[in-house]
């Protein structure tokens, strides 16, 4: 896959504060790239620099192989942006808001009308076309905010924490919508500090902290990188000492405890750990119940890498 965006040695200062520090990365065509980081880590700043909304001291940003500049309107035409905060006209209806923002890109009336209908359907606002923003719930408002940003069918979509403070139903709707955008061929840069979203949505993740990339890779790669352990617990009515000793000798096992009919096996790395355990139990004809594995999450990865929680 070819690179659609390239960021090289980007540094952005706010007076004396280095918000982004010598950042380099690229975005590949068709992928969903997650920008992950705690509050104030420089996610929005990075995004705003990529959009030429902020001037920066050092570094280059190229999109479609061309330098991104404030007046690069041919590049901007292919970009859709959904900002962290809802940006709408209170005086315009849902439809008119979309007509305005889409109209900034699409001049042809009929095409625009079709695109708006598509976007309204994508975020599920069909029943609210004539509503004014203040009549919408927070979740619906977010959906409208997204629809306004992507109605012109851009090739690249920037989303800055689109699911913050959104009810679960709207959230699922938004995540589905993003999946659909990708299916339609869009490249997506997705900023968030929700781990679960990144795990199910993103092809690749960049973890930022204090304006620096501290890790980069697929969600699985990142977990491996962190060298995290996996914890499997099983309920076994009765277990003999010899079995415990044998389980200790299984592949990757680092620690085994058995207490109150609860067996806990800790693995230091590796895949298919759960399966190898169940196979052993079945072979020895030991009956078991309630087996589950706690795999490390990106949150654990983050904790491991920085020593702090992603979310406050």
């Amino acid at each position, binding site marked *: 896959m070819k690179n659609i965006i390239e960021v090289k040695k980007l540094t952005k200062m706010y007076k004396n504060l280095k918000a982004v520090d010598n950042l380099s990365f690229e975005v590949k065509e068709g992928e969903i790239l997650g920008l992950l980081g705690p509050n104030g880590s420089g996610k929005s700043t990075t995004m705003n620099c990529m*959009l*030429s*909304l902020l001037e920066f001291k050092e570094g280059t940003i190229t999109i479609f192989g061309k330098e991104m500049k*404030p*007046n690069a*309107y*041919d590049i*901007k*035409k292919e*970009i859709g*942006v959904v*900002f962290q*905060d*809802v*940006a*709408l*006209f*209170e*005086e*315009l209806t849902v439809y*008119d808001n979309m*007509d*305005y*923002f889409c*109209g*900034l*890109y699409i*001049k042809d009336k009929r095409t625009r009308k079709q695109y708006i209908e598509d976007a309204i359907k994508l975020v599920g606002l069909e029943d609210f076309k004539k509503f004014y923003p203040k009549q919408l719930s927070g979740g619906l408002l977010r959906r409208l905010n997204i629809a*306004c*940003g992507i109605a012109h069918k851009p090739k690249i979509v920037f989303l800055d924490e689109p699911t913050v403070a959104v009810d679960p139903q709207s959230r699922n709707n938004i995540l589905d919508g993003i999946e659909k955008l990708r299916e339609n061929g869009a490249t997506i840069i997705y900023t968030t500090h929700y781990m679960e979203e990144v795990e199910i949505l993103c092809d690749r993740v960049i973890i930022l902290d204090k304006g620096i990339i501290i890790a980069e890779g697929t969600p699985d790669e990142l977990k491996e990188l962190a060298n995290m352990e996996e914890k499997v617990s099983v309920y076994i009515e009765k277990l003999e000492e010899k079995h415990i000793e044998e389980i200790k000798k299984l592949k990757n096992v680092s620690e085994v405890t058995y207490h109150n009919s609860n067996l806990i096996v800790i693995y230091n790395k590796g895949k298919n750990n759960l399966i190898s355990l169940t196979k052993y139990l079945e072979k020895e004809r030991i009956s078991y119940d309630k087996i589950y594995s706690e795999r490390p999450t990106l949150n654990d990865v983050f904790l491991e890498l920085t020593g702090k929680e992603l979310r406050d």
Partner: protein
Amino acid sequence: MTVFKAYLKVLNKNKWMVILYTVILIFFAGFNMKTSDTRGFVTEKPDILIVNEDENIGITKHFINYIKENSNIKEIKEDENARNDALFYRDVNYIIYIPKNFRIDFLEGKNPEIKVKSTGDYMAFLSEMLVERYFKIANIYKSIETNEEKLEMLIENTLQKETEVEMTSKLDTDTLTKAAYFYNFANYSILAGSVFVICFIISSFKEEKVRKRTIVSSHNYRKYNRELLLSNSLFAFTLWLFYVLLSFILVGKAMLTSHGIVMILNSFVFSFTSLTLAFFIGNLISNKEAISGIVNVIALGSSFLCGAFVPMEFLPDFVITISHILPSYYYISNNEMVKTLEIISLESLQPFFINIGMMLLFSLLFIVLTNIVTKRKSS
């Protein structure tokens, strides 16, 4: 078109405010027009000081009497500094210096020069007209009549006839007073209407997040600003045109006379100044809730201070002094002046144009301030 279309939709949301300001205008201006004429028409006389170094006899005396009849003669102590002070403080509008031997020189055809000092305002202009008229006639008869007493008689008769002619063609002060009422009151509606609507629209379009969204779009941002500016100007122009039409309905055909047209011109310039003021305030504030408060302070405040509701002559002096720092003062002064102006000419309109110049200076100031504010905000 995208911007203009959205502009109209946002404007539509504000139509009730504009209608409200207009209804207030019709109601109060209309009400005042009906009760306007208790004061009748008073021709105002200039305050003139005559410094006579000649003997007070013959043609000199005749000239002085003529001036006395047509003005309020002031007595100031015999000191040039005191006279200058009197001019400066507008205690007199005009000083006429009659030189030594004026009478003899005049009768001998030497065309002696009469020196004057003037405040340069409309009253001074009237004084000048008095002097000019006298000598225009006197010079004509002097060439055919050498007897001083007969000459005085001839001048006297002609002056009287001219006044009669003038009286018959006397302008319709009644209607002009109505027009002035309307346009004075329009000070409130024009200011309130344009500041309210334009502030509201600017705060919608330039709201930080909406602005960001516009900047990242592929719509040229400069063009976008231009479209917004044009739409706002178009609105202000339409509002003005609407009020002019309203004045035709309420005042009538008098608006088509030269007096009426001068008032319309005055209101046009004032609308422009209001537009620039609205831009300045719209870019300064970012809070929609604050708009109506600000509009009240500006529109009501300046209307009261500058005599849109209560004629200036009833206002205390210090209020009038303060009101000089407001563009409304110059707008309303112009309406009041045009109302009493007997002759419309480039010369008689000089003070009018000075006031127009003041309004334009205010506009310039507001434009500069707007630029400073927008530069500050974008950096």
